[in-house]
């Protein structure tokens, strides 16, 4: 089981964390909501929870709660630019259906 960051994503996360000045890592997760069942969470982490699973990718600590992990296993988080818009993208092999915009999905 593993979740990884692309090198570009890791660089951006490290940069944001440095400027934010606090935090131990990056949290990836899912929660049930949205039009297709499950939605992603992408947050800074200040406190590690007991059921968090920890990964390390390009020097960034990635934390995922145990319940979210099955939905995210194998995911690579990338950082891309689409026209003027730029941000993080979840490349998740578990997704079967996603809503039009990709903010929520089902597995």
């Amino acid at each position: 089981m593993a979740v990884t960051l692309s090198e570009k994503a890791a660089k951006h996360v490290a940069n944001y964390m440095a400027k934010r000045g606090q935090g131990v890592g990056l949290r990836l997760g899912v929660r049930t909501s949205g039009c297709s069942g499950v939605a992603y969470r992408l947050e800074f982490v200040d406190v590690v929870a007991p059921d968090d699973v920890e990964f390390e990718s390009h020097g960034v600590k990635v934390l995922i709660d145990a319940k979210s992990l099955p939905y995210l296993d194998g995911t690579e988080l990338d950082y891309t630019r689409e026209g003027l818009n730029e941000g993080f993208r979840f490349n998740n092999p578990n997704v079967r259906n996603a809503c039009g915009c990709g903010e929520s999905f089902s597995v």
Partner: protein
Amino acid sequence: MALFQIAEPGESAAPHQHKLAVGIDLGTTNSLVATVKSGLASVIPDALGRPLLPSAVRYRDGEPPVVGYDALAGQSSDPANVVVSVKRFMGRSIDEVPYRESMPYRFEAGPGALSLKTVAGVKTPVEVSADILRELRMRAEAALGGELVGAVITAPAYFDDAQRQATKDAARFAGLSVLRLLNEPTAAALAYGLDNAAEGVYAVYDLGGGTFDISILRLSRGVFEVLSTGGDSFLGGDDFDQRIFCWVIEAAKLKPLSSVDARHLLTCAREAKEFLTNHGAAPIVARLGSGEVVDLELTTETFTEITRTLVEKTLRPVRRALRDAGLSVADVKGVVMVGGATRMPQIQRAVGEFFEKAPLNNLDPEKVVALGAAIQANLLAGNRASGDDWLLLDVIPLSLGLETMGGLVERIIPRNSTIPVARAQEFTTFRDGQTALALHVVQGERELVGDCRSLGRFELRNIPPMVAGAARIRVTFQVDADGLLSVSARETTSGVEASIAVKPSYGLSDDAIARMLKDSLDHAKDDTARRAVKEFQVEAQRLVEAIRSALVADGDLLSPDARERIESGIAHLQAAMLGEDRHAIARCIDELESETSAFAALRMDRTIRDAFSGKKIDAIERELVSSEKGGET
């Protein structure tokens, strides 16, 4: 496929519920739009990666207008239809725009506001600004991938109501919902204060394209407090261009120019100014419509020389703002430079020398305002991150006070006090048995009520009848965070109360405020003299009243002769009171007081005799001790 930003812990937005909010610096020369992404404010560049959008709009016949660099490109060939520095015209009537004759526009005086004739029809400054804002909105929506919930737009601290309203209208025309208008220096402080978290007193020196603002701020434990503000709404980088322009005309001995040539030379002047930031000399080469060629070299020395008065002009409001804040140069921990014009070396040097320290430049002076606005927008849109519980304090622009006897103003809250604020002062009655007190709340810096602005009146009734000066009326002025003033009065012995709520800034434009401030300076000496006369007149009136009531009560103590001398003293004083000669009034007061001192002594004896007759010494002592204990607070 959606792109994500990193949220604060526990604050991931539900799908399709991102609140996209931006901060917009709608500048005279350039405009910017910024947003907060993954907790950090950043300026949104255009498709070519350029952060600035020149505040220029070119109107075309039968085609949509172009904004920004493309509009500027048409400036030399089509100056009448390329509107630049439109911010100077916002909320202004045609007479309020200086240097009008050197501008290539066809102005039209509208009702209260001016407008410009272009090939695409008559355009108001609001419409031109809306075109700039629309461009920024589209840029932001393309970059953020969604519709904006709102924007914070910045305005110079000295913008008056009309100018602020015009800015808001422009935003509405551009399809933006305005979360708040924010003062530019305050926005800069937000950007610096949050990013650097340095405590202390800071000066924000903001020399933009068309406006100059100075603000003295205190940053402590995440709280921004605006101590004072000042500035000049007709001074900016454009004026430096203008000086170079005039220098070129003089140096090259040019005849009056066509509007095309004027525009072209102004562009050359601006380029020379920017070139001088990093070079010792700038070439100015231009071919005029007549075929004449201008070929000059402007050195840093010459540039510094011809703009010396402009630089000095910025330092005057700086001194005044410091004085208003009650601070000296030594109290200022750092100077924040804002606006592209602060890149000029002579500005950096002058500001550095004035404050005796190198100015701060660790954020791009052209971007700080937009970044601060973005941070504010992010908060107002509800994307609140933990630890952002800072407060923004503002100041009241003019002193608030009460009318006292003789039409004098007693200032309760001095101007530039930070709000929210509450101040109380005790007043008393003027006449024996007075049962009501009229309170007149005024605003302004002048010494006499007639010269200040009336905000409201109310009465405190049912004061128990007492001798003059015995009633204790505590008047409390309170200004809340929204600038709303409430005044309450309470007679402390009886507990009767009355109050009133007013909005101090209601209907008073910043122009009016500026005028009132200026008046107070111009008339300071005059006012002091008039105040002194009034004070003597009031004192005389009080004395006459006191002696009259004493005569009624204890007139039997006086010999007919003594009584007559007192009566004639009163007559003299009353005659003197009618005049404006305070020395004459003072002399009569002195005479009357010495005339009545024997009478006062006689009255005192009688009072003591009455009070103590039939009492034992120890009872009197007990009374004295207890009255001392219950002394006044």
